[in-house]
Every structure is written in structure tokens, then in C-alpha cells.
């Protein structure tokens, strides 16, 4: 609830914060491409799981989620690393540029397990089962969540605590790329949280199992977050356009 509130607040205060630092910029079309490829990646993963192995989230959550994060991993890391911070320095030297890009990719790869650990801990605190039976599901789910939440941020922001804090704790994205990081991540977490709701109910449906409905919620929230961030990037670009002219 309060997160949503915060978000509304930031939209109001946004123009003042835009000029504060020099955040990496992203054009609406690029943002659209990122969004589209993420969505398509998800779709691809589902398609592969469904047609190739005839499984889906309900029948075999573990493997389906595995496909999801496997497909999303290169998309997210490769795409977001392009918008790493201070890319201007590489204007002069293509080599430096490449090195920076590769470092961003490396950061992203490093963030996968770390983010997974964080997400896993969070899930366990909230009541995810910890038996061996559920271990592969939990691991796969955590990796997926990691891709939704921490990996883009680490690709773009690196290890800057201040930026992380601003985006994840305060929800004050600064500039279009940060919208693209912040909103989908929040969407995934909140979606997952809501997705957990049906779990304790006595409907006795197969999808009430961990982590099926949570994954549905997280993916849904992620998609909403992506779309919303696209809209914000568009609005952001427009307002800047207006300012410049």
C-alpha cells in the first residue's frame, strides 16, 4: 500500500529530481524494445515448456520456472548492461566501452545468485516451505525473482549503495532507466506477495502449492511493472522534450 503511495508521490516530484544527477538515459523506443524482449522471453519460455516438454507452471513448476529464468537470463543481462552507468566515458575508446559492458554483464551474473539468496530469505521469512522436497522449486523461483529484481539493477547501477537504497528502499527512480529497473522489480515483489494469498485457503487446487501462485503473481506483477515503466519512460521523455524546447 505505502509503496504505491510512494510511487504516486515520486511522479509528482519527478521534474525536480531529473536534473539532480546525470543518470543514464534511454529513449522510449529502446525502453519499448527492452520491455518487448522481456515479455517475449517470458512467452518463449512458456512456449518451450508447454510445447517442447508439455509441462506448465502447475504440472511441473520447478522446470517451468527453470526455463523462464534460463530464457530471461541472457535477455535481461545483455540488454540492461547496455544502459550501465556512465556509458559516456566509452565514447572515445571502443575497447573501454567493451570492457565496461563486459563488467556490467559480469556484475549481472554475480547478482544472480546474490539476488536469489536475498529473495529466498525473504520468501522463507514470509513462510515458504524449507523441506528438501521443495528445494529445487525454491531455488528456481529465487533465481527467477533475482532476474526480475536485482540483476537489472546491478547491471545498471553496479554496487553503489546509495543508488540501490534510493531505488529499492525509497522508490525514487531517477531517470528513465531507473524506472525500467524499479517498477518491474517492485511489481514482481508485490505481485508475488499478493500471489501468496490463495496459498492457505482451503480450496484444494493444485496451483495453490508453493511456488506456483506466487510465481504467477510475480510474473503478473513484473509484466504490469514493465508496461508501467514503459509509460513512465514515455512521459519522462516527453517532459524532458518540453523542457529542452
Amino acid at each position: 500500500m505505502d509503496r504505491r503511495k510512494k510511487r504516486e508521490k515520486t511522479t509528482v516530484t519527478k521534474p525536480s529530481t531529473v536534473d539532480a544527477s546525470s543518470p543514464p538515459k534511454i529513449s522510449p523506443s529502446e525502453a519499448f524494445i527492452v520491455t518487448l524482449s522481456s515479455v517475449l522471453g517470458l512467452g518463449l519460455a512458456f512456449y518451450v515448456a508447454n510445447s517442447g516438454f508439455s509441462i506448465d507452471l502447475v504440472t511441473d513448476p520447478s522446470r517451468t520456472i527453470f526455463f523462464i529464468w534460463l530464457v530471461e537470463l541472457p535477455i535481461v543481462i545483455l540488454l540492461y548492461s547496455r544502459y550501465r552507468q556512465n556509458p559516456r566515458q566509452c565514447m572515445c575508446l571502443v575497447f573501454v566501452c567493451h570492457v565496461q559492458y563486459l563488467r556490467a554483464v559480469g556484475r549481472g551474473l554475480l547478482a544472480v545468485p546474490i539476488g536469489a539468496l536475498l529473495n529466498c530469505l525473504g520468501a522463507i521469512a514470509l513462510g515458504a516451505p524449507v523441506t528438501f522436497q521443495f528445494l529445487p522449486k525454491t531455488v528456481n523461483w529465487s533465481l527467477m525473482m533475482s532476474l526480475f529484481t536485482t540483476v537489472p539493477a546491478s547491471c545498471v547501477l553496479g554496487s553503489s549503495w546509495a543508488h540501490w537504497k534510493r531505488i529499492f528502499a525509497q522508490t525514487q527512480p531517477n531517470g528513465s532507466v531507473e524506472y525500467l529497473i524499479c517498477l518491474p522489480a517492485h511489481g514482481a515483489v508485490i505481485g508475488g506477495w499478493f500471489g501468496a494469498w490463495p496459498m492457505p485457503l482451503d480450496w484444494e487446487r493444485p496451483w495453490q502449492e508453493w511456488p506456483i501462485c506466487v510465481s504467477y503473481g510475480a510474473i503478473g506483477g513484473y509484466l504490469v511493472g514493465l508496461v508501467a515503466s514503459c509509460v513512465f519512460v514515455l512521459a519522462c521523455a516527453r517532459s524532458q522534450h518540453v523542457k529542452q524546447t
Partner: protein
Amino acid sequence: MKEREIEGAARRRKITGKWGYTWHLWVTLLLHIAAIVLFTRGFLLTRTELPYYSNSSDVSESQCLYSSSHNNTTTSSWTKPAVNRLIIIVLDALRFDFVAPSTFFPESKHWMDKLKVLKEVVSKSPTSAKIFKAIADPPTTSLQRLKGLTTGGLPTFVDVGNSFGAPAIVEDNFLNQLVQSGKKVVMMGDDTWTQLFPHHFERSYPYPSFNVKDLDTVDNGCIEHLFPSLYEDDWDVLISHFLGVDHAGHIFGVDSTQMTEKLEQYNSILEKVIEVLEKESGPGRLHENTLLVVMGDHGQTLNGDHGGGGAEEVETAIFAMSVKKPPSSVPVEYDTSSCQLDLDGKNVCVSSMQQLDFAVTMSALLGIPFPYGSIGQVNPELYALGAGSWNLDVSQQLSESDIWIQNYANILCINSWQVKRYIDAYSASSAVGFSSDDLSRVASVYAQAENHWLHSTKKLRLDKRDIDALVPALKKQIESYFNFLRTVAELARSKWTEFDLRMMGAGIAIMSISLIFQVLAILRANSQDGATLASSGYAWFFSASAFAFFLLGMRAVSFLSNMEEGKVANFLLSTSGIVALRKSVVKGKLLKESVGFLLLSTFCRFGIEIGLSKQASTSAFMKEYTSWILNIASGLAVWNHAAEVVPILVLIILAFWLYKATSDIFFGWPRKIVVVCTILSYMLIIVHWITENNRYILAFMPESIGRIYIPRIVYAILLGQLLLLVFAQLFRGNSSDCKTNLVVKTTAMLSAWSSTVILLSGKQGPMVAFASIVGGYCIMRLCDIEDDAKNGPQRRLSIGPFPVMQWNLFATCLFFCSGHWCAFDGLHYGAAFIGFEEFMLVPQAIILTLDTYGFSIILPVFGLPFLVAMKYKADLGKHVLFTQLSQMYTTYGLITAIMTTFTIYCVTMHRRHLMVWGLFAPKFVFDVFGLLLTDDSKDESSLKDAEYQVAKVRRKGGYRAAYFVFVMMLLDNVGFVANMVSLVLYFGSVMYFNIPGSATTTTNLLGTAFLIPILGGFISDTFLNRLNTCILFGFIELLGYVLLVIQSHDTKLQPSPCGEKGCVHGRKAVLFYASIYLFAVGAGGIRGCVPALGADQFDNNDPKERKKLASFFNWFLFFITIGASIGVTAVVYVSTEIDWYKGFIISLACSAGGLFVIAVGKPFYRTRVSGDSPLLSVLQVLFVTVKNLGTKLPQNSDQLHEIQSDESNLMKKLIPHTDQFGILDKAAVLREGKEPKKWEVCTVTQVEETKILIRMMPILFSTIIMNTCLAQLQTFSIQQGVRMNPHIGRYTIPPASIPVIPLVFMTALIPVYEFAFVPLVRKITGHPNGITELQRVGVGLVLSAISMAIAGIIEVKRKDEFKNHNHVISLFWLSFHYAIFGVADMFTLVGLLEFFYREAPEGMRSLSTSFSFLSLSIGYFLSTVFVEIINSVTRRVTKSKIGWLEGDDFNQIHVELFYWFLAVLSMINFGVYLLCAKWYKYQNAVPFESELVSRNDAALRNDEIEDTPK
């Protein structure tokens, strides 16, 4: 603007006071109670028990063929008896799979196939023995099932609550029918049977059933009596109820070696029983025609729980074996059995039946009437076992199965008729009957069957010709009866879950209203504090509140279809923890706390899962986890040791923690003791645990000490602590900082409760306690996360609902964490036996409640003030603190109430749901209990806290406070005076004292009652304050009254007449003297401190109040006289004319009311701090005077010793030196070389106090004579009155009510004095009270002399009229001297009281006011002395040699002379008094400024009119 606000707040504060903070909590409680009562009445099922009983002759009303029609015997029976004797062996909690072969189940478990003997019997002779799967109806608790089994009905849910009390069954039942039919029943085993059927058994051997830890007592008892009984012939039905399996299940679970051992034991027992039966089964032997039934009353889950409607719980087994082999089996149509080969390759068949059918089938077999309320059907297969005995008298032309069908059809006819009769009777007489639709449906089904019976079957049967047509017709007939009985059973099952929707709706509506009310209360409080709510942090406050209510809403909604409330609560708790963590990252502070909180909630989550896993009946979970909660030790020795040691270590840490925490803050001594006691309790608990497990220590001390006495000591300590806390409440903590006070109180309260709660929770207790402390700490810290240091004093004041919500969630988590869940099998019955060996309802119910709600309600609710206390670093004043506290409690209550409301909604919605009994109903009960408990404890605790608050804001003293004193005196004197007057009659008429005996007893009693005020005064001056002294003595007085009531009510406690001086002896005497002297002591003590308490309310140094002080004493007397008037009329009338004990009850009620009033007034009183002992000070002066006799007095009195420090000024005023009694001044001389110590030198003030006392003494003594005169009014004058005409007008006045005359006069005259006399005389004398106190006393003395003189004259007139004119003069004549004496009393008593109060040193005011009662007391004693002296003197002097007052004939003795003697004595006394008074120097002779009077007179008058009681 701001000023006006503050003013407004102040005014509000004044209005609100103590109740202002708590009234809405009380209103909420009331609303909740109303709502819950209504809802419960609609929801919890009730089935009316009908008081009708089946009779053996009833059956002729039916259209069926009953057995008597065959035999034409006079006594008809319903069915032909098929068996003679019946053995019922009940194995409690017998699961179906204990009996059935394991091949019936998909998986073979090792507890199956243990009761081999049953299978063998069944496979050997399938016609004479059968195994049934019996389906029980929930609730599956033993008591309900026994009730269901014997009545053949469906016991309802409410009875679950009665399971502890086990009330006798009043409905018609199987056992009752047995007894009616002259069968003899023997019972052994579970004592529930004897509670259910207290008078039905020929012999019974009950054993206690509730101690589940005991596996063998009941079983061994059964075995001991079962086998000898089998060889006896003095019974027809034998019931043996084994409990071992049930207990083994409860303690160890089904999957345990203990369970297997139990089952094997039963197997061997059953083997032996069957052996005996078969041995004795020959013709003419004992068990020729015996039926053996082995059955379970219900099943159990794998954890050993039962109570709900789960398949494992309802499926139990019945094994039945007929010793006489029936010829054939049941026709296939009615055979429900399915057969399987068991492990040994034998064919075993198992049938199935409803437990409902048991009672009626057994009745049919035994040939007794069916229980009236039975709705079961005669089970064909079970009934067929008795078929061996009824094929003899029927003609051989039919096959066996045809005969069987004939018989069975007839029995079903009777059965259906009986059920129909019950249904009709139930609908007719029950408040909630069946609906007419259902009734007509049932009726039509029955009519159909009956029609068929009458028109075809019956005829066919009686004809006995058309055999071919008969059998199909019979089959059709049976089918239609089945149809009917099935319909009824279905209807009953659905309808005896009958809900009263209107009631439920009303309950829900009131509940909703209470929610709205609570929200309004919070909003109102918020708006009052609106001004102080700083704008910074408002956004966070708002969003946090919104978030809190969002979570709350989520939680509430989840009840709609929620299985795992604990998980949801924990989920929300963790969510709130994550939000807090996020916030703390933003703020960059309190990281440790928020991470810790999150970790804690994660731990909680594991705890909850383990708890839930016990609930979910699979124990697989337990094996996968090795967890922090104990007793899951997985075989490793380390685990075992850790499970032993860790709780003890944690407990030690807790104790140490408590010690550290409390050593920092200032604690008053009572609370310090509380904390120390808690630590002691902790140590005791450790000892308890060690002895429980450790065999080495057991060698040193008997087991029972550790197991029984230590827990009891802990409980006792808890009680003591609570009492101490209440006691500490009386002594207001003198720490000025009310925040510290709050913390101290809360800590003390929590620590008091904690020890018992930990003890009850077992080994996990310390961990949960530890967790709750950590969690509480984190929540407290986190709630000021938003506070920035820069905000400083402008900090936001409101706490908001978020932390409260967290607190509540955390409490809920703790409930689940400590292994509870919302179901009856989730109760820790084991906890109820900590410290108790056997079952006792009340203490164990309390203990169970403590265990269940200890961590989730008691501790959190009492700990809630911490949130407020921690929030405010600075002491912001009481008002803020208590507003916050009250608001927070309201919020907490609101959260609980919302949860309960939602539970109620859900229960209502799911009322038809299958799960309603298993899940929602218990949840409802739990929530409701929780809610009421929360309401109650929060009311208590907030009320307790609010008491401080009042101390400062209330204007104290004045007439407002005095009203309480007045009312108290009025009420108390109703009983006191009445009993003083009438007890003499009680002694004579009830206690059988003779006349002198009762007179002496009365005098002694009166003397005591008037001497004790000195003690009361002394105590209230020295040790306790006046109010507390009064309350103390009040309780003594009440105790005395209670004893009096008891003795006067119960004739066994009264003596029989004996004609001696006193007839009471032994125990009766103890009771008697205890009662009257407790009464006297209590009443006397009250009189010692109440006048001073009242007078304290006026400040003697303030001229305005000084004037009121005088009128206070007038009004004081006024109210006493009113009370006394009521007493001597109404109470005396009741006592003497109606019943003594009723009179005492009225007195008791009045005194209790008075006590209540005086206690309620507490916030209004000015209290004086009690000081050093005044008597000790006087003693010191005398001692030092004697010591210093040799020294010389200094010339200047200034050189005398005096402490001139501020300290002494605080305690009392310094009194300037006076010259009288110079010798005493020597006490104040400091001899050279001596230290100024006590007992060496006294201060001038001390000396002067002593002087004042000495000066007052003559005044006191000179009033004694007057009180002697007063005593005559109660003795001789009443005797006079008895000999007068008691008719005044149309009314007759009883003699004991004669003393009402002076009282009436006083009542009338006091206002006159107050309003007319005083102002008038004041104008003349200029004294504010009209005349000085001593003048007042003088007037009284003169008047009393006059009164005595008149009394003598009237006596002369009376005698003259009587002797000479034989005319009895009217009682009216007495009123002259009574009236004058009343006026005299008014002058003297009030004058004395005021004199003593005003003149006494401040430290001894209570004592000195009680001096006036001393005078009364001596006066009474002196009266007796005078009578004796006069008699002995006049005997010698007079010619007749008879004393003036000797002889029984009142007309002969010379009372008038005695009166005149007293009158003369009074005049002499008055002379002495004048001298004394002249000699007396008013202590602080404040010169009265006449100028002041004239200036303030008008204003004063106005004041007076306002303030004087109307």
C-alpha cells in the same frame, strides 16, 4: 487561541477523570457480551431434552404386533427378549483399524492386527460374531458419545462444554430402561458413567478418567473387577470401560510402542473373556444366552486427538458375539458386510452400521422399551445375532430367513412408531421444533409405510396362509420402514444443527455497532489530540495506519476460507517486518532491530509450522524437521541433553535479565517483592523440570514434591503477587515521574504472570517468553523509527495503529507458536494436570485458560503500556500518557474485535458447511474467549493505570469529598445502631442467654465497640491513612456480619435452650463470639477514622473552610441520625418481626454499600500522610521528663530544644511554647554533653502536643456523666416505654424502636441549628460557629441534666397515673426528655468531635476524635457501675432495705430517684466542666477578625448554601 485550547483541554480533563479514560472500554465490553450472548444462543446448537420416558405398556398404542399379543401375558414387552445378559466392553478411542484386519486398508501399519482374537472369532463362526464399522456422530468426545450411545439420539455441540462437568443424563436412555425393566447393571472403569448415570448401577467401580498421563489405573481397575464379575449371576448387563488406548493416544500418539502394548494387553483380556463365556455357555450355565459387545465410543487421529468429525475420529468399531449360535445369517438384502482374507488367510467379514442404532438395537435384543428419544433403527445384522432364541414358537412351515424377516418387520414397525412418536412430541414441546414442511414429509413417509402395514402386511401375516405373497410384502414393508427411519435420521442430523438466524443476526449487528463505537472512540480521542499532532511524519503516520488496516483487512478476509490462521498471521507479521526494514534502511537507523524482528518472525514461522504439524494428523513432518522447539529430538543424545538444558539456561537468562532490568529503575517495595518472587518462581520451575526428568535427584526427594508442590507454590506465588500488586495500588507510588511509574507497574504485572505462564507452557515456555520479550522490544523500538532527532520536542504524539497491529499479530503468532491451535483438541489438557493429580473442575479450567491464553493475550495485553512508555522519552504529563494508553487499548481491542466479528461472519456464512463443527465453531469459541479476555484484562489494566491520573487533576476535599463520608456513615449506621439496639433481643431469643446474661453481653459489646475507635484512630494516625484504615475495619465488620448471617440462618449453628446464663458452647460459641466481636471491632474501628477523614477535607487554617468544618460535624451527626433512625425502625422491624438473618443481611448490604461508597470517593479525598506514632511521642515526653526531673528550666523558653529544619516543617506545624505544665518543659531541655537524640530530649512541639492532650482530658472526662445519662435512655427509658401506651394515633410503636424518638428529634433539629441558630448567634458573638465548641458542650451538659430531671418527673406521673387511675399514659410523654436529650446530644457530641479534631495536634486527629467515643464507652460502663452502687447504697439507706433499682416489678422500683440523682450529678459535673473549660486554653487561639466576617459574610453565606447538602 492556544490558551483557549489549553483551557478547554483542562476542562475536559476535569470532566473526564478516571472514567473518562476507561468508560468506552466498559461500554465495549458490555456490547461484546451482549453480542456474543445473542449470537451464541442462535448459533450453538440446542436440542431440547424431553422429559418423557418410554413405558412397556405404551406399545399397545402402536398398530404393530407386540410380543404380549402372542402370549397374552399381562405385562407386555416391546419385543421378545433375544438375549438374557449383555456384556459391553467399551474401549475408549478404538480406531476401526485396530479391529479390522489390515488387509482392509491400503497400507498395513504396525498398530493393526493387534486385537487378533476378535478376527479369529469372526472367521471361525461368522453367524454368531460380527465386526462392524460403527460410524459415530460428531462431536466425538467421550461424554457426547456415551450420551448418544445410551439415548440413541444426537447430542449437540454445546455439550462439549459440559464434558468437564459431566452432568447426569435426564433424557430417557438405554440404562434407564434397563433399570425400569428390573435389570441389574454393573459398571467398571471410566467414572464418566457414574456421573452420567448416578443412580442406575447396581454396583460400580469408577476410576478417574481425566488424568491422561495415567495409562493404567482405569484399565487395571476394570480387569480387577471384570473377571470375578463374569462368574457372578447378580447382574444382567455389565459395562466395562477401558481408557488406556485413549490416554496412550493423547500422550504418545497411535504410532507408539505404548499403544501397541495397550492393544496387546486388550487382546489377551478379550481372549480370556471369550474363553470364560464359551466355558460357561452350556445350557443352564451362567452365560447360556449372553451377548458380548466390544466397542469403541469414537476413533482418534494418529495424534490421539478426537472431538471433530474427521473420518478417523468418527470411525470406530463394534464387535458383537452371541454365545448362543444363531441358526442362520441375515438375508442378503440386509447384509452390508464385505469380506477379505486376513494375513493368516482366514476370511473375515466386516459390516457397517451407525452408532446411532446401537441403543435401540440393544433394547430390542434385551426386550426392553426403546429409549423415548432414540432415532436409530434396529440394525438387522446386529439384531440377527440374537436370532438363536426366537425360532421355537413359530410354526415350522416357514424357512428360517422368512421367520427372521417376519420378526424384523414387526420390530421395525415398533421402531418406526416409536421414532414417529418422538418426532411428534419433540415438535410439539420444543421451542425450536421441526419445520412444518419437514414434519409433513416425515408424516407422509410414515403414513405410506403404515398404510402398507395395515392393509397388506399385517393381514397377510395374521392369515398365515398366503406365504408366497408374504415374504415379498414383508420385504417391501421393511424397505418402507427403512425409508422412514432414514428420512428421520437425515432430518435430525440436518436439523439438530438448527441455527436461530434472528439471534445470530442480532449478535452480528451489535458486534458491528461495537466496531463502529470503537472506531468513533478512537477518532474522538484523535481529534482531542489533534492539536498536538505535528505535521512532520504525518505522511508516514497516515500510510502506516492505512497499511496496518490493509493488513488487518487481509487477515480478516482470509478467515472466509482459511485453514491456517497462524501462517497468515506470521505472513503478515513478516510483511510488516519487511516494511519496517525498508523504512529503517531509508532512515539508516535501527537496522539491528528490524533485522532482528524479521529473523524472529522467521523463527516464529517454524514454531508455528511445528505446531500445525501436530494438528495436521501426519507426523511425517516432525521427522523431517529438527527444529528449535524441543521434544523432537531425533534420537541423538546431544539433542536430548540440549532439550533438557536449553530451557533451563534460557530461564536463568530470563531471571537474570529481569533482575538487571529492575535494579535500574526505582521500584516501590511491594513491586520489588513481586519481582523477587518471580525470580524465585523461575528457580522453582527449574527445580520442577529437573526433578521431572532426572532420576538421580529423585532419589533425594520424594517425587511428589517436585511434581505436585512446586507448581502449586508457583501458583500461590502468583496469587500472592497479584494481591501484593493490588495492595501496592493502595499505596500510591511516590515516584513523581509517571512514565517510570507506568514502566514499573507494567514490569511488575508482567513478571508476576510470566512465571505461571512459563510453567504451564512446559519446556518451550522460556523460549517463547524470550522470543516475546525480544519481539516486544523490537516493536517498541521500531515504532519510533520515524522520529527524527531534529524534530525534538515537537514530536508526533500519537502512536498510531501500526505498532499495535504488529503487537497483535505477534501475539497471535505466539499463540500458534506455543503449540496451540483453535480447536478443542488443541487445548493442552496436560497443562491442566501440572500440580494436580486428580481432576478438579474450577482450578483446572483456570489453569487451562492461563495456558491457552497466557502468551497470546495475558502477557501482550498487560505489556501494552510499554509501547506508550517507550515512546515518550520525556515525561509529558499524565494526561498525554493516559490518553495515549486508553487510545492504544481501544485500538488493540478494535483489532481483536474485528477479528472476532469476521469469525462470526464466517461462522454464519459457513453454518451449513461440513467444516463448521470441526473448524469454525471452535475458532468461534476461541475467538470469543479471547475477545472477552482481552476486553476484560485491558479494562482492568487501563483502569489500574488511570488511577494515577486522577490524583492530580481533580480538585480535592471540600463538601464533595465529605458527601462520600456522609453517605458512608448513613449506610453504616443503619446496621450498626439497629444491631446495637436489637442484639440484646437476639441474644435472648436465638442464643438463649438469660436476661442478665444478654444484658452483660450487650454492655461488653457496646463497650468494645466504643473503645475500638481509639485503636482505629491510632492506626489511622500512624500506620495507614484514614481511608485505608476505614476499608480495613470495614472488611472486618463485613466479616462479622457474614458470620452473623450464617449463624442466624442455620439453626444447626445455634444452641438449644438450656436455662443457664449462656448456652453457646464449643464451636458454636467460637462462631458466635467471633461474629459479634468482629462486628464490634469493625464498626468501632470505622468510627475511629471516618470523622477525621471527613474533617480532613476541610482546611482548618482557611477561614472559609474553618467555618465549614463546624457545619461538617453537624451534618455528620445529621446523617448518622438518619441512618440510625432507619436502622432502629426498618432493620429492627425486619430482625424482630420477620427473621433475624434477613435483618443482618440488610445490615450487611448497607455496610457493604457504605464501604463501597467510601472507597469510590478515594480520588476526591485529601489525604494526610500518616506520621510518627503520637502515643510514642507522648511516652517519650513523659519518659524524658522523668529523666530530666533534676535539671533546671532555662529562663527563656526559646532555649528549649526544637528542630528548626525544613524536614520537620513538612511533617507538622511547630507549636509555640506555652507556660502551663512547666514541669513537662523539662523534657525539652538538652542536657549538657548529650546528643539531641530520641529518648534523650524532646522538641517543644512534642511537649506542647502532650500538654494539649493533658489539657483535653478533663473536658473528656466531664462529658462521661452525660453519656451515662444517655445509657439510661437505652435501658430504663425503654423499660418505661414498654409500660406505656404504644399507640400514637393509629400506629403501634414496637419497644425496640423507641430510641428512634431522640433520633427523629435530632434529625429535625440539626438543620434548624445549622440554618437558624448558628447565623443568629454568629451575629451576636461574632464567632464563625456561633458559639465555641466548649460552650456548645456546656449547653449540651445542662440540657442533659434537664432531660434527666424531666425523665424523673414523667416517671412519677406514669406511676401515679398507673397506680391511682390505672391508666397507661401515652408513649408520647417520653418524647419530652428524649427530645431534650437529643438536642443535648447534638450539642455535645458534635461539639466534642469538633473540639477534639480542631484542638488535637495534627498527627493525632483521628485518635483524638475517637476520644469522644471513648467518653461514650466509659459512660456506658459507668452506667452499669452506677446502678450497682446505687443499689448497694440505697439498700442500706432506705427503710424497705430494697435498692432503688432492685426488683422485677418496674412499677415498684424508684427509677425517678435514679434519674434525679443523675440530674444532680450532671449539674455538679457541669460545674466541674465549667472550671475545666475556663482553665483550658484554645490551642491556636487565632483571634477571630470580625472585620473579615462582615466583609465576607455575604459571600460565605452563598458558599454555604451551595455547599451544604440538601
